[in-house]
């Protein structure tokens, strides 16, 4: 039968059909057709995975460690995760009952949402934010409720804004600090205010801390360590950013046993377990990866200093990010909107940045520049953006 006469759409579930496609898809397609593009649009480390970690995975492969592991993940890895979480984030978890190894934070977030949300439940999350939060919530037939964050607050959630959006149907508050795309971070006072809000409204807090190790200010204990919070917090983290292991797809969740157990039900039927070779690599990273991790963090920090200074000197104001590897300059001084700025910059100067609107409507007026790219590229990109801005 001629495909064009068959409407496949009738087979697509309504809630999937109505999911918007990622706002940067068209932009991405154009970038891919161009040569000699300097991309500040890449949200993954430019470092190779440290050799000792790759070597551990190769060793595991040679040894034939290629079978399934426990659904929850190899217990040795879970023990290493809990030790790491305790030493680095002040979170205390039992490796046997309060930790699950997942295929990246993406899977952890997906199975957590599926584990906790009934149709019609509401989840508060802050914008601008990573592109998958709202769709992940929507896929469970629940309702994502965006709360704006503002440049004037350095993109930290304002409790007053949260209070406006919370309803009796609100079940959870999703946090992502250090933040993609803004580089914002939380102080201990911010965390206390958010914890107080969550307790007051009896909400579960989901804290996606994938960029936590890439902090450039002294780190404070995780929100789960605050009084009354461990029992209502699920921490999500993984190997991708801090250890430059994006393609390994290895993440984890730590939280109260009943929630981890519910996540585990979904995980065992859908994923079975995280890849065993990636688990072997993660074990090595957590146990012996601190030195290489710190080297990368220092390099990101220095690039941050260079790119923030460079952009501010061009009149594209951005605050000094506290973590992650993004800056989020305001481009309103050019008189352009985010998409036009990104598209014209790409066409005229072959520099790719991501329009702020990809991260929510309140990203209008901003673009995201990633500094997970080599310093000479950052410097060349700033030079070209300077020429571009001068013509406006």
């Amino acid at each position, binding site marked *: 039968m001629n495909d064009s006469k068959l409407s496949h759409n009738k087979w697509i579930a309504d809630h999937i059909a109505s999911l918007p496609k990622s706002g940067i898809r068209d932009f991405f397609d154009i970038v891919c057709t161009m040569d000699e593009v300097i991309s500040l649009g890449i949200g*993954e480390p430019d470092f190779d995975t440290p050799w000792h970690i790759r070597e551990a995975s190769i060793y595991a492969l040679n040894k034939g460690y290629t079978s399934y592991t426990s659904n929850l993940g190899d217990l040795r890895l879970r023990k290493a995760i809990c030790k790491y979480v305790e030493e680095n984030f002040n979170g205390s978890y039992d490796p046997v009952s309060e930790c699950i190894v997942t295929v990246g934070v993406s899977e952890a977030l997906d199975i957590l949402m599926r584990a906790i949300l009934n149709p019609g439940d509401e989840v508060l999350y802050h914008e601008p934010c990573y592109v998958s939060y709202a769709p992940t919530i929507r896929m469970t037939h629940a309702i994502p409720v965006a709360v704006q964050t503002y440049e004037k607050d350095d993109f930290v959630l304002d409790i007053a804004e949260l209070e406006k959006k919370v309803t009796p149907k609100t079940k959870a508050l999703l946090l992502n600090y250090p933040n993609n795309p803004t580089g914002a971070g939380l102080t201990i006072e911010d965390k206390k205010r958010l914890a107080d809000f969550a307790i007051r409204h009896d909400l579960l807090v989901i804290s996606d801390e994938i960029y936590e190790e890439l902090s450039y200010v002294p780190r404070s204990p995780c929100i789960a360590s605050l009084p009354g919070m461990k029992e209502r917090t699920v921490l999500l983290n993984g190997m991708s950013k801090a250890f430059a292991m994006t393609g390994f797809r290895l993440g984890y969740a730590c939280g109260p046993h009943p929630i981890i157990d519910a996540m585990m039900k979904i995980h065992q039927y859908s994923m079975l377990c995280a890849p065993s070779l990636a688990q072997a690599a993660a074990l090595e990273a957590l146990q012996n990866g601190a030195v290489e991790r710190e080297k990368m963090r220092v390099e990101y920090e220095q690039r941050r200093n260079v790119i923030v200074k460079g952009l501010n000197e061009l009149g594209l104001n951005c605050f000094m990010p506290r973590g992650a590897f993004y800056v989020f300059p305001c481009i309103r001084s050019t008189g352009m909107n985010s998409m036009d700025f990104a598209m014209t910059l790409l066409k005229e100067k072959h520099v*790719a940045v991501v329009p702020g609107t990809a991260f929510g409507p309140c990203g209008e007026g901003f673009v995201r520049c990633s500094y997970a790219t080599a310093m000479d590229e950052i410097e060349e990109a700033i030079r070209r953006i300077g020429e571009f801005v001068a013509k406006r």
Partner: protein
Amino acid sequence: MEKKTLKKEVLSLLKRNARFSAKEMADRLGASEGEVLATIAELEKERTIVGYTAIVSDEAESNEVRAIIEVAIQPERDTGFDNVAERLARFPEVRSAYLVSGKYDLRLEVVGDSLQAVASFVAGKLASQDGVKSCATYFLLKKYKESGVQFAREEKHERLKIVP
């Protein structure tokens, strides 16, 4: 930034790449160019930094023959290995010299125009020195890594151009 920290950071950058400009280091560290220049001057003056060199490929050194030489020394009263070691290190043929633990005492790297040149240096100058008990010469055949730099470049993996 505190002066002591700045010194440490500048040193760490220069050890990675001695060609970093003062401006780039200043931007990286959030300091001024003047502060960085002053720090470099101080590091040089106090002889924390004693020189700058380039790391070059095997091909660039194809007209040279290099050897690692293990030297066993008879230590002297009071000065130990130092007198002999410093005397040996004075020869321009000796590119590097370390006192090491283990079966022998000094590890020298020696450079010459040819195999014969190195051999005659070892036999004529080195082995015959007072205090040198014995030596073993290992000619270097191929360089894989020097000063933290690996020579066989891995093919750079192309990342996706946009990742949210």
